[in-house]
């Protein structure tokens, strides 16, 4: 556990943001987390434009993406990322409430790296987020050019 990758969270619900951060904080994974609240903001972050035009370049080690988002929804963001040469290497994990087959199928056909349904039970939720954080931000070797600490 020498390096810790940056985690980009795309989540519109403030409660879910807080719960996810709490879960990550429990395992000391919360210090390299960027929160964006809709698909547009997430794309702005990835392309270093708008409010993120001054940020240091570099892709996140993993992106946790909700599907139901205002403005640009999760599947559109996913499509945009996977069709862009510079961004398609970013591992994207869909983290959503729904396990409708339709969503799962669309996500995988767009090239998502993992699909995780948020469990209702808090312990399970914390566990799921922890496993995700540990695997993608610590165990997994991120693609070159990712921001690590």
């Amino acid at each position: 556990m020498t390096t810790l990758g940056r985690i980009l969270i795309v989540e519109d619900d403030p409660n879910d943001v807080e719960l996810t951060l709490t879960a990550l904080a429990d395992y000391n994974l919360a210090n390299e987390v960027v929160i964006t609240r809709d698909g547009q903001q997430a794309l702005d972050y990835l392309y270093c434009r708008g409010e993120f035009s001054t940020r240091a370049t570099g892709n996140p080690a993993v992106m946790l993406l909700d599907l139901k988002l205002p403005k640009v929804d999760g599947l559109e963001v996913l499509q945009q990322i996977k069709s862009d040469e510079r961004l398609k290497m970013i591992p994207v994990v869909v983290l959503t409430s729904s396990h409708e087959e339709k969503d799962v199928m669309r996500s995988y056909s767009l090239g998502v790296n993992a699909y995780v349904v948020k469990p209702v039970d808090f312990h399970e939720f914390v566990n799921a987020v922890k496993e995700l954080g540990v695997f993608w931000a610590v165990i997994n070797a991120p693609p070159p050019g990712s921001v690590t600490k």
Partner: protein
Amino acid sequence: MTRLAEEPTRGVRRPLTYWNPEFQRIHSPILRYGFSVVSVTIAFAVAFALQHFRFRDVEVPVFTVAIAFTTWYAGAGPSVLAVVLCSVCFDYFFTEPLYSLEISNRDLPYFFIFLAWAGIVASFSAVRRRIEDSLRKTRDNLQVEVKQRRRQEDEIRKLNQELSQRAAELEATNEELESFAYSVSHDLRAPLRHMAGYSELLQRQASSALDEKSQRFIRTILDSAKRMGNLIDDLLAFSRIGRAETRKTAVDLEHLVQEVVAEIGQDTKDRDIAWKIGALPVCYGDRSMLKLVVTNLVSNAVKFTRMRRPAEIEIGCVDRNEKEVEVFVRDNGAGFDMQYINKLFGVFQRLHLPEQFEGTGIGLATVQRIVHRHGGKVRGEGTVDQGATFYFSLPKAQGPAERKANAP
């Protein structure tokens, strides 16, 4: 149909009383016989006149023309009359001895040739008339048939239209249902997760400050949120079964049951259960759905025999007939009162208190829905505290040879 068949004749008769243009024939029998007499008279007059101007031997063709006209326009009876009249006239006025009905031996062949000639003309006309009549009849029949066909086509078109409308409505309803399920799946679970999450955080944060009662309240909130989460998940799974396509193949039920029993056996190692699995056939259906049916029934049996030592669970089949097979799962557990049988397979219907046996009450509804989608039936039998038996029927797979041919 009889009404229709009568229509063409009635329609033709109406405009004229004397003349039938369709049949090229005079209507009334009196007029027809009159026509016969008149035409013979005219022929006679013409023949007489011609003879007067010393044209020889023209009476036979003239009379034959009269007979032909009569046959053509007045039919068989009048033509016979015309033949008779012509013969008499011919005999009386034109053969020796004149003005007598006697025929001399010399003229006899001549007379017979005339008769034969008249007969041939009359019969030709009659044959033509008969052929025409039958053609006309066939045409009428065809017309009736065409009309009927057209009406049937109209009806089919109308039914098709209704059907496609119904299909469109159904599709709209299905879409609505789908978007409903989608939004339930997305939006209803989020607040639940927050309730559970924040209660958990509250418990963690303030557990030292809270008394036993408050702790219990928080636990109840957590349990309820979890339970509601399960209910939503079960309901979504149930609605998915109704919407998902079935992928039907030959399914070895015995293998399937053994698989399910082995999986459930993992969780019931500490229980004393006497399993009895009979020979089961191969049937035709969606394997994952049928597995859900067996899993639901077997786990119900395991659940409701919790207090039995040993619990006896039997899975077997009754060979109903050549087309379908009936599988049963029997246990010696809590059973149920047969008077509530109609509630047994309902969604969220439960016959036991949650403290006695946990569950959301969707298992048997799922079983019923899957079996119905396979064209089978479900039923249950039970006695309180004696156990219950659940049956479901399924269509059998085709013969073994065909089955192998169809196997991937």
